[in-house]
């Protein structure tokens, strides 16, 4: 694969947080490049900075130093509106704790990203498409019968699949998953990984963070983060 096909590039990322009186350096110069269509797992112990790295890659956070390029465009040069649009259209997030909105039902949670990007008139113009897309995604994720349920009526695995549906709603070029199986039993977690593998086989670029080596094995490439730096790269 040539270098020109990198969808995401991170160069020299540094990130530190202040915790009380001490400054905690989480990332200490991370370089990472992700090819289009790749399934990359970032592995590391708790506190190694892997979630921080994922948040920076998805423009949910900013590095103290270094830059992140998405399709050759430097995210630090994006305006606030462009960053919001980037998070809405270009990346999809899957979190360990699903993070669904309790007030919305399953279907509404899935089409939420489509709704947030549209005016009332724009929404009325595309709502049929959005609802059909959300229903299709739920069907693909095996949740067709759960569309009208509230998140609290679902199991952990089902909630995570809803979260995946939401992340995929706007057909993002990049799917970022932060410990997507971290809160699930192994059988359910396996189901979620199968979903991610299936998506990747269909061409979806996936970057997944996990502390579990066995889960990371499901990715095509594994990157190990130790003490804020990339230590080891392994490709299947």
């Amino acid at each position, binding site marked *: 694969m040539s270098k020109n096909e990198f969808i995401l590039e991170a160069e020299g990322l540094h990130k530190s947080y202040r915790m009380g009186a001490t400054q905690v350096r989480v990332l200490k110069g991370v370089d990472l490049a992700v090819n289009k269509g790749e399934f990359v797992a970032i592995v590391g112990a708790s506190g190694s900075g892997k*979630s*921080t790295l994922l*948040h920076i890659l*998805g423009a*949910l*956070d900013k590095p103290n130093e270094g830059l992140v390029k998405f399709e050759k465009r430097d995210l630090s040069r994006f305006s*606030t*509106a462009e960053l*919001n*649009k*980037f*998070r*809405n*259209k270009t990346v999809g*997030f899957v*979190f*360990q*704790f699903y*993070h*669904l*909105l*309790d*007030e*919305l039902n399953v279907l*509404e949670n899935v089409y*939420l*990203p489509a*709704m*947030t*990007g*549209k*005016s*009332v008139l724009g*929404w009325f113009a595309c*709502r049929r498409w959005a609802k059909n897309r959300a229903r299709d995604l739920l069907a693909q994720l095996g949740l067709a019968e759960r569309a009208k349920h509230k998140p609290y009526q679902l199991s952990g695995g089902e909630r995570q699949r809803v979260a995946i549906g*939401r992340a995929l709603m706007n057909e993002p070029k990049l799917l970022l998953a932060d410990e997507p199986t971290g809160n699930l039993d192994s059988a359910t977690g396996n189901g979620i990984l199968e979903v991610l593998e299936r998506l990747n086989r269909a061409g979806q670029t996936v970057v997944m963070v996990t502390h579990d080596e066995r889960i990371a094995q499901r990715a095509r490439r594994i990157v190990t983060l130790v003490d804020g730096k990339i230590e080891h790269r392994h490709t299947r």
Partner: protein
Amino acid sequence: MVMYKIILPTRFLLKRRITYFAVLAVALCAFIVLVVMTVMTGLVSEFKQKNHQFAGDCVVGTKSLVGFAYYEDFVALLEKADFVEAASPVIKSHALISRRGSDRKTRVEIMGIDPVRHSRATGFGETLGYHKDDVSSVFRPAYDPNLPGCILGIDLELQRDADGTYTYQASPGRVGYSVSCLPLTAKGALAQAGTDVIDTKTFYYSDNSRTGLPRVDGSLVYLPFEQAQQLCMAGSVKRANAIHIRFKPNVRLEEGCAKVASLWQSFKQEKAGDEQAYLLETVTVQSWKGYRRESIAPMEQEQTVMSVMFGFVAITTVFIVLVVFYMIVSHKSKDIGILKSVGVSNVDIIELFAGFAFLVGLLGSCIGLLGGWAFLLKINQIEKWLFDHFGFQLWDRTIYAIGDIPNQVELRVLAAIVLSAVAACLAGALVPSWQAARQRPVETLQVNQL
């Protein structure tokens, strides 16, 4: 406006029990403000209305008991003016009255009027107990039309019941009153009328007048104009103390008063060389509001005090809403992180919670107003029930000249309350919304934030 900013605030409102408290707080405040403002505004406007009825639209007059001369010429001028409906010259003075057969003397104010002219210029005719339909005969006692009649302020003659009503007889009873005055010359000196400085004449109770103004109803006696003039004023040139004027219906009060003032100035200049022109110097032209200022001002002052007090209530509402919103927003930090992760901006977050605040304000004020409206519709029945069962009255009707508690809800008051409630909620939600918008999603979505 985007769709989720409608859906999410609506769901927050319906699904979060804590928001019911915010709605309830707003509803209670709206209820209290509506009820108190309606009653207070009603009382003030009723009081103003009564004063307006008593004085007419405009009064040309002097505070001097001596009065002013040439009033007939000015009344004639006024009656020719196209903006004047009617004008009524009036004698005003103080007197002592005593019921025939009794030694007890009571200090009263007397007003000498032509009843027909006065009822055309003011609401006088409407205040009468027995002669509403035939004002011209009001000074002719029913029991002997040849006797000189007088009209007593109702509280001088009758007692108010506990529920504020007066018990009338079928017709006024034959009662004579001795009215004693100190007649004054045009120079303000006491006239030597007969052998005594005091002029006394007997009048017979022919009717009563109920203006609803306690000071008037408790101390005013109306006498026929000419006889009052003879009692109070000595001298060859006739004098009056005031001219009450009613404008034509389409004439604005300020405009009419300005025209009367202009007419008066011309009139004064025209009379400048006349014998008693100096008496015209003390005459002023006032609208009924200015003329009755001393009565109205304390009432308006009370209304202002009430408005200030309810300003504090509004501040309390803002504080309650602020607290509730702080609690709601603190529970919503995860949702804010989620929304930001799907591309929602800080401004969108503020708008989202502003929409939520708008709904709380709108719903709360509507509930409060509906409740307040229903309460006001039944307020007099409720008061009557409380009085019948517990002896409680908002105002003691034997003391206060208040009939029914005013309960006419004004649309502009309703609109003002809704707007204020929504504004209060928006103000209360502003700070927490702004803080919510500033939250970094990575902080709110971290595991240890859950």
